[in-house]
């Protein structure tokens, strides 16, 4: 789960990390008021959950409150990478001397949290990593011991931070570490962390990603999830415990198991089709879940055929088939349905489905080809 910049920075501030004065606004008028309060140059920043806001014109500097209103008006009517801008953050403008990159994230290969810093901040860090990897400093944190002061000092020294700022940087590092721990973050990023002209450190931008699997212990964070930024079908799927991702193709996929769901997409593509979604209905595949999944898939107007691929392992194939038929009765989809059913009692299951005029298949390859053909009409 991604947090907005303004949400991330609110968390940072709670952990003692200095951020600019500012507030979030949903209208140009509000933005003007905030700019008046801040009484000077402000930055108007679109709040959308994608990168590249600056390049898209979603971050602008205003010299007066009136200009802030105008710019906010412009930005609030923009779309950035297809996402409409619904809120802007109005921050006092900082006098920047230097921009640093600083983040804590999970290093899956090392099985440890890692602090990442670079003196080349303010830009896309992946670009820095690709072109000048030597400019990126990494220090791993032992997850049982936690961040130690000397690790922050090592980072500060390695990015040539002026010595008089080390103590403040140490506080920022331990604040960010605690924020990362307390929120079960997978990423807590400050980019840029700036040194201002009057020699202070300040988190000018912030980005946090929270581990979805840990939301059970962070109900307050789960509540601030911005579902306006999501494809509505994905929000709907989460409600039913389905793992769903909208894609651009025309063949809907309903599969049990994430690996098999990916594979089903891959094989649709291999045989010349385009998957319309990723959907893992999980184990069991009871009629309720199948029906919800089916509704979500066929509510996408681009879907012209559906591939259902169920590997009946411990759940018997005939049970799965009955579940699918019950769901069909309820949802009454208008597009052709191709069902591939394998495993225990699969043959019986397939017979039940054939009797209900569904297209069936035994192999994955066969199923994918039939779905591609069905979608072409």
């Amino acid at each position, binding site marked *: 789960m991604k947090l907005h910049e303004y949400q991330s920075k609110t968390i940072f501030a709670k952990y003692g990390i200095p951020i600019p004065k500012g507030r979030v606004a949903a209208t140009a008028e509000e933005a003007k008021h905030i700019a008046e309060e801040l009484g000077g140059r402000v930055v108007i920043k679109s709040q959308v959950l994608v990168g590249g806001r600056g390049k898209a014109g979603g971050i602008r500097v205003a010299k007066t409150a009136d200009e802030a209103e105008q710019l906010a008006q412009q930005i609030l009517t923009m779309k950035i990478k297809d996402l409409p801008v619904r809120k802007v953050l109005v921050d006092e403008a900082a006098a920047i001397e230097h921009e640093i990159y600083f983040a804590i994230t999970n290093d899956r290969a090392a099985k440890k949290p890692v602090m990442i810093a670079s003196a080349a901040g303010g830009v896309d860090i992946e670009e820095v990593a690709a072109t000048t990897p030597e400019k990126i400093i990494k220090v791993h944190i032992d997850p049982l011991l936690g961040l130690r002061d000397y690790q922050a000092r090592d980072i500060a020294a390695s990015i040539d931070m002026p010595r008089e700022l080390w103590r403040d940087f140490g506080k920022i590092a331990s604040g960010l570490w605690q924020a990362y721990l307390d929120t079960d973050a997978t990423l807590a990023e400050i980019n840029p962390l700036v040194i201002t002209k009057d020699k202070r450190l300040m988190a000018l931008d912030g980005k946090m990603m929270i581990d*979805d699997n840990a939301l059970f212990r962070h109900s307050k964070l789960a509540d601030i999830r911005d579902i306006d930024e999501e494809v509505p079908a994905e929000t709907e799927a989460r409600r039913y415990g389905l793992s769903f991702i909208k894609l651009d193709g025309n063949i809907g996929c309903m599969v049990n198991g994430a690996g098999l769901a990916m594979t089903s997409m891959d094989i649709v593509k291999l045989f010349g089709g385009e998957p319309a979604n990723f959907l893992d209905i999980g184990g069991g595949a009871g009629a309720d879940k199948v029906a919800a999944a089916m509704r979500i898939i066929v509510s996408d107007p681009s879907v012209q055929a559906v591939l259902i691929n169920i590997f009946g*392992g411990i759940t018997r194939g005939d049970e799965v088939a009955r579940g699918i038929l019950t769901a069909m009765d309820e949802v009454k989809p208008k597009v052709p349905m191709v069902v591939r059913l394998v495993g225990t009692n699969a043959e019986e299951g397939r017979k039940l489905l054939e009797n209900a005029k569904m297209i069936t298949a035994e192999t994955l390859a066969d199923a994918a080809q039939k779905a591609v053909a069905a979608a072409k009409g």
Partner: protein
Amino acid sequence: MSILINKKTRLLVQGITGNEGLFHTTHMVSYGTNVVAGVTPGKGGEWVLDGKIPVFDSVKLAADATGANCTVIFVPARFAPDAMFEAADAGIPLIVCITEGVPVQDMMRVRNYLDQKKVRLIGPNCPGMLTPNESKVGIIPGNIAIPGNVGVVSRSGTLTYEVLYALKQVGMGASTCVGIGGDPVNGTNFIDVLEMFEHDPQTEKVVLIGEIGGTDEDKAAEFISAKMTKPVVSFIAGSSAPPGKRMGHAGAIIEGGAGSAADKVKALEAAGVKVAKHPEEIPSLLN
């Protein structure tokens, strides 16, 4: 021979009185797995499966009483980290965690702690292991595989079943099938299992089922190129997955341009691995 589990495996089930735990214990027992005990705190002294399996209050008590040498965990995600710590503290040398959805920060603590204890963890978020006709630890359907000389290791669940089933269709069997799980931080990696298969006399060929995300397949490729004498066939799921999206498994995500299926296929092919275009191709590539 096989790896990790066999007829001598004395299995403990953590969370045995839960729905999942009891359901799969029934299946494991009917497969022939030697399930010696279960653990559910507060239910010590009870019995399950018509009085066949005793339930204990803690892993330590269960292990002391029954000599269990392997444990399989079916507890909910919020209790799974402690279940793993507890098993490690009780000295169980092989821990299999089926549970899905364990937070990754918890898993980093678990993994770093278990590494100190020299304990092997399989999973979490995995289907477990199957040594056909000997022992089934976890949720892999027993009837989809027959004994044979193919070692199977996989990050995915149902996709693994596909492969076992495809092998069985052509009369090929498995030595052991190990599901290492789809989480970004887990206990056992491809190279750990590849090394075991390389040293296992029963295993003559290996199937490796990978997916997008992380660098485990790349490390496997390095290992295969440097250390493996047995042929390896592979399939990598997710070639059609868009970057930046988590494809069901917490670990299945292309991040910062790294972890794509194309890169993994390239690395594996460079190591001499035959990579299938789809899983049903695998049996033919093994010949």
